[in-house]
């Protein structure tokens, strides 16, 4: 299927060309992985500070609080709290999950899983990472500006995010950072789409691609279409802030202008709703594959899963209005958006049926990638179902902007995506770094994370239904929320537990990358997709000979097979 010859150049020799300015998709993938893990740590620390403030308002943040907030003896001040939750959201979505799921797995997996030697545009790929670094630096620098970083929430609605509400330069830098990141992701997305279309190994039709590739492909399409929309909105916001235009400023007592703040919400959510699918689609793909790999059974209805993912992708572009019900839409619009939103449950129910169908009558091996994949099915079930309350307009009138929303989107975007990311990390570790991670500690990591995250996010949904609204520094200035103090403490301690579990992961990961002596075999998981036909770690330019694909990615348990229960994609399906 390849449209052109893929040349092999010499291996880079210097440290700089090998690890820093690298054109190799595998190195860029690893760079994104480290980048994402770094920001995951930063964002996670911010999450713990937020949780601490909510459970123990006015109490100094333990251990490091005194160094970070010396002016208040370690107590998190309210303006800093607003910065923390704004930056937590921004960092987690754009600087942790996007680089890990899309940057790292996208770059690493796409060429390997479709039998290509590299991406189509290696230079754009390299630039994509370095633009992301520039963006990350801008964001981190904004934390140290005089009035601090952006503090208007990760959605940064005007007019709060214009000069009326945020006079500091932090908000401008926030817009700039996301704009630059948009450039980075768009370059990546164009690269992914082109690579998947042009560089599939000969014989690999679209339905012979692993579902991971389907997920990454659909994500890249959404990214390429909708990130420019966000970029446009951010640019207008920068104009409003720097050049005094009034796109988002309307005439009111304290503001003047002929624009409309709600316009930004439209622009933001046209991008923002696809964004949640941008984050979850790669995880869905990875999970769909891993369930089949470790149930040792072909993926149940793989074609239907791929088509269901495609229809979710299309539908995700049509539903953004459900984020704006409380801006008082006409009932005609609420009706439309509500119905379209609910339609997403048909393809979602089809995945769930197919996921359960995959493990049905399988021969399940509970390896760490499998545990994390099953975890995704569990938490995404909760996250998806709780979305129903927010899709129906009347319940949304009560639940909008409460912690219920926070719990819901953390289940879908944080819990599911993180577990999917961990599943992928444990699974591709041997191909990435040539060593395996410790299985025992991986399972400990899984169970503690699972307990912690359900405590946190279920707790959030409960306090949200009980009436606690979002983004408040001290909920207990409200008499009717005082009864929620114990629940908030429970959530905070669950979050701390979950935070500690990630230390296990980091130690396990760093140990496997740098210190583990025993090398992984070429195919430790006994799986037949193309990346497992080459040695571990994947060699320079991946495939000496471009493989020829003769069967699908999920050939397991074929009774006609002798000696092993899986087939490589380069083999004809065994016939009895």
């Amino acid at each position: 299927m390849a449209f052109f010859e893929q040349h092999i150049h010499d291996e880079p020799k210097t440290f700089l060309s090998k690890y820093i300015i690298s054109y190799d998709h595998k190195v860029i993938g690893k760079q994104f992985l480290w980048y994402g893990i770094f920001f995951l740590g930063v964002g996670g620390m911010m999450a713990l500070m937020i949780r601490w403030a909510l459970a123990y308002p006015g109490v100094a943040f333990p251990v490091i609080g005194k160094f970070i907030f010396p002016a208040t003896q370690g107590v998190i001040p309210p303006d800093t709290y607003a910065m923390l939750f704004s930056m937590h959201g921004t960092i987690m979505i754009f600087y942790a999950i996007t680089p890990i799921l899309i940057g790292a797995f996208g770059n690493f997996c796409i060429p390997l899983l479709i039998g290509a030697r590299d991406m189509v545009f290696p230079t754009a790929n390299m630039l994509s990472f370095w633009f992301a670094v520039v963006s990350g630096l801008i964001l981190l620098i904004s934390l140290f500006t005089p009035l601090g970083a952006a503090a208007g929430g990760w959605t940064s609605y005007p007019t709060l995010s214009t000069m009326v509400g945020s006079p500091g330069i932090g908000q401008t830098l926030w817009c700039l950072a996301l704009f630059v990141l948009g450039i980075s992701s768009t370059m990546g997305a164009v690269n992914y789409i082109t690579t998947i279309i042009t560089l599939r190994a000969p014989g690999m039709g679209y339905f012979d691609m692993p579902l991971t590739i389907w997920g990454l492909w659909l994500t890249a399409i959404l990214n390429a279409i909708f990130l420019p929309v966000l970029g446009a909105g951010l640019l207008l916001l920068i104009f409003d802030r720097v050049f005094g235009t009034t796109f988002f400023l309307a005439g009111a007592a304290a503001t003047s202008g002929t624009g409309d703040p709600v316009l930004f919400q439209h622009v933001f959510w046209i991008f923002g709703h696809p964004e949640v699918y941008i984050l979850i689609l790669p995880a869905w793909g990875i999970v769909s594959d891993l369930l089949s790999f470790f149930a040792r059974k072909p993926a149940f209805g793989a074609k239907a899963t791929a088509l269901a993912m495609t229809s979710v992708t299309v539908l995700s572009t049509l539903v953004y209005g459900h984020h704006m019900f409380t801006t008082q839409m006409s009932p005609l619009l609420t009706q439309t958006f509500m119905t379209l939103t609910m339609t997403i449950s048909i393809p979602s129910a089809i995945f769930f049926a197919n996921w359960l169908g995959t493990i049905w009558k399988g021969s399940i091996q509970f390896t760490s990638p499998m545990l994390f994949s099953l975890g995704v099915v569990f938490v995404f079930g909760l996250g998806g179902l709780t979305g129903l309350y927010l899709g129906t307009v009347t319940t949304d009138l009560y639940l909008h902007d409460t912690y219920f929303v926070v719990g819901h989107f953390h289940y879908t975007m944080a819990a599911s995506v993180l577990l999917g990311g961990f599943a992928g990390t444990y699974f591709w570790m041997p191909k990435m770094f040539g060593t395996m991670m410790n299985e025992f500690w991986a399972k400990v990591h899984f169970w503690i994370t699972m307990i912690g995250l359900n405590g946190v996010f279920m707790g959030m949904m409960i306090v949200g239904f009980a009436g606690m609204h979002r983004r408040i520094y001290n909920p207990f200035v409200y008499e009717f929320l005082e009864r929620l103090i114990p629940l908030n403490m429970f959530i905070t301690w669950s979050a701390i537990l979950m935070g500690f579990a990630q230390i296990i992961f980091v130690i396990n990961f760093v140990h496997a990358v740098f210190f583990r002596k025993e090398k992984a075999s070429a195919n430790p998981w006994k799986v037949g997709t193309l990346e497992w036909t080459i040695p571990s770690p994947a060699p320079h330019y991946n495939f000496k000979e471009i493989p020829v694909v003769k069967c699908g990615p999920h050939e397991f348990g074929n009774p006609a097979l002798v000696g092993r229960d899986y087939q490589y994609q380069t083999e004809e399906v065994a016939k009895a």
Partner: protein
Amino acid sequence: MILSYLTSLFFTQTWAKTSTSDLSWWQVMAPPEDISVNGHLIDWLFYYTTGMNIFFFVLVCAGLFGFSFLYYHKRHPKPYYTYGNKKIHVIIATAIGLAVFLAVDMNITRISNNDYTDVFANFPNENEEEVLRVQVMAQQWMWNFRYAGADGVFNTEDDVITMNDLRLPINKKIVFQIVSKDVIHSFFLPNARQKVDAIPGRLTRMWVELVKPGNYPIVCAEMCGTFHYRMQAYLTVYNEADFADWMNEAERNAVKENELENADLYWGWKWEL
């Protein structure tokens, strides 16, 4: 050891707090008391959706945990070789999809849409029935309320103006028109289950009818700056007679005390029908 220290800290702190209040866990988790005529529609839909969700999530869990147990590789070494593309498989997967869609989604969409068009977005016809009109102006970080006063016309000298103090009668439809002075806020009455954004440059509306006298919170639900969390107002609900007494006195005081020369008095607008 650290873990046991942490858990002990957690349990002693949590349980100590719980024991001081005599609320059961169910009471803690329940939403604030519903004091409106229509709030029960929202609560009912919430509980109905919850019932449906529990049903389907139990099915998912039955599959997830049941299959994990039954088909553990030591218990079930030979997997069943199928692509899941037999007719029966496709029918079952489609049936599950349609069952969820029709039984849950379309059902709650229909109910919610009917509630919204017939009740929450169906504003009382002010030409035909008598309603109480209140203008609300949100600003960083307080709520301004304005009643029309004795002449029934807004933005005149005799308007009753309050700050963070909203008083309403029971058994009367109340219509709010809401604006914002600076950034976006959200006017949220947890006890009436409703909120609507206050947006600079736009006028939004909300209507409620209350049934239970008492003191309740009004909160800002949309992030509006550093002191967003302090943007609290107080709702006092009176029975009809008490409200009339309060209103009469407030109107008398307004005529006496409003500073007619002060431009800040006239933040209201002509009531828009």
